[in-house]
């Protein structure tokens, strides 16, 4: 186990150290102390490391993550795990807006609430939120799964393409071209896998599924009012 103190080496010190580790390093487990809400901690990691951040982080923590398993033991600021490629980012507290934005892959788990624009423009990432998400979540979502164990705010899935949205609680309103869809066996299986990965106790049967009505894919003058 290796420990780094952000207070001593700064964000750049931590990130360059983690970036310089060879992919097959034996020093796999890292603990970061004193994050002090600083931005861009552990961004762009490209190795199968296990990183524990002991405290609250600022914006963009774990952005572009590849292969690493990151745990934030506290609150996460704006844009957590944005554009993640693979691996896991786990937030033990709440998260600010735009969590998992444009994520391509991997798993983002937020034990608490996730605020607005969660999974905005997601492109293949799986996101499981233990609490609720705010307005405009999964805006223009393209691929992947967003699982919300609490409620969803206004305009869920506005202008959505092909991502799958699962909500257990209430949905304040659906965005343009987002509709409720039937839950089939494959969806229940997907959901079971994701809930298990996020160590959730909810049952897949308690959720409802939402997705794209596929009417805004191409411009059609008949749908001009909906744009």
């Amino acid at each position, binding site marked *: 186990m290796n420990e780094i103190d952000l207070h001593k080496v700064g964000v750049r010190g931590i990130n360059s150290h983690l970036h310089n580790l060879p992919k097959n390093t034996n020093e796999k487990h890292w603990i970061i102390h004193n994050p002090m*809400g600083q931005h861009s901690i552990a961004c762009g990691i490209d190795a199968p490391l296990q990183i524990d951040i002991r405290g609250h982080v600022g914006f963009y923590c774990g952005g572009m993550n590849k292969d690493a398993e990151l745990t934030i033991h*506290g609150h996460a*600021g704006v844009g957590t795990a944005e554009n993640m490629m693979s691996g896991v980012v786990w937030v033990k507290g709440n998260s600010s*807006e735009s969590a998992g934005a444009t994520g391509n892959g991997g798993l983002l788990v937020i034990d608490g609430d996730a605020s607005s624009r969660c999974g905005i423009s997601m492109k293949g990432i799986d996101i499981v939120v233990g609490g609720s998400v705010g307005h405009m979540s999964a805006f223009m979502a393209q691929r992947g799964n967003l699982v919300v164990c609490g409620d969803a705010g206004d305009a869920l899935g506005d202008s959505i393409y092909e991502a799958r949205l699962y909500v257990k609680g209430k949905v304040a309103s659906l965005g343009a071209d987002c509709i409720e869809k039937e839950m089939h066996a494959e969806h229940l299986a997907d959901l079971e896998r994701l809930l298990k990965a996020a160590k959730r106790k909810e049952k897949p049967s308690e959720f409802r599924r939402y997705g794209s009505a596929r009417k805004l894919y191409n411009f059609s003058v008949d749908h001009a009012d909906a744009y």
Partner: protein
Amino acid sequence: MCGIVGLYLKNPKLKPKLGKMFKPMIIEMTNRGPDSAGVAIYRNPVKKAQTKFSLAHDDANYDWKKIDVGLERALKCDCTVKKIGNHCILVTNAKEPAVVSWLKAHHPGVRVVGSGHTIEIFKEVGLPANVYDKFDLDEAAGTHIIGHTRMATESAVTTAGSHPFATGADLCLVHNGSLSNHNRLRENLRKEGMDFQTENDTEVAAAYMTWKLRGGATLKEALEDGLRDLDGFYTFLVGTADGFAVVRDPIACKHAVMAETDDWVAMATEYRAIAHLPGADNARIWEPEPTIVYTWGGHA
């Protein structure tokens, strides 16, 4: 950009440390707003029959004794003045409107930046650290404090255009964001008799709140009406006599985070400002929801 920060002490034992606790918070927001900084601190309440004014003048060597003597003679009242930086705290038993119009007529270079029973407002161009030192805020004791670091977008970098803006007795407003309908709104409010010192958009929001409150609205009602009438994107932090209030526009794209422990409640544009507070590691932290008016201290 811009950074806003607020700290409200739930534990009265911490009052002597308010200025010290707040200093790293506002300094951490320097790179969000290096143009000017300001704070509103709530301390040393005056007697019921008295009013406390925060006055400012561009000349750091301005002779505030002139105000003291002149006011006492003209309004047959008692006054005390205390110079702090290029500001002055005036305490008097004269009626507030009489003081304001006398100042306007005889000392037009003096700006009234705040008034009430407990509020004191200090603001100035420059880096937050310099502004904080200039007004001796490090040693300041009090119950709560709000602050602003400004990156100017809608109007010039001047002391008058710095936040906080007073909105009524013991009330003031700091703002992160920008308003798009401030010109039209300013004209409408001028017709309602409101005065403006700058071309600043936040001053319009402050005048709007003042106008609403004078019309009998509660702070909560004024803020909720503002959601309808103020077009733009904003997070507002409003200092009140006994606490503060936070509200975000419906889109809520200007950052805001709140944290609470048994000892304090804090609000900031970014959590890193709050991270310096004792006990922050174990605080409850969340992002305020859009259009919800959050209040502490019983007001509103």
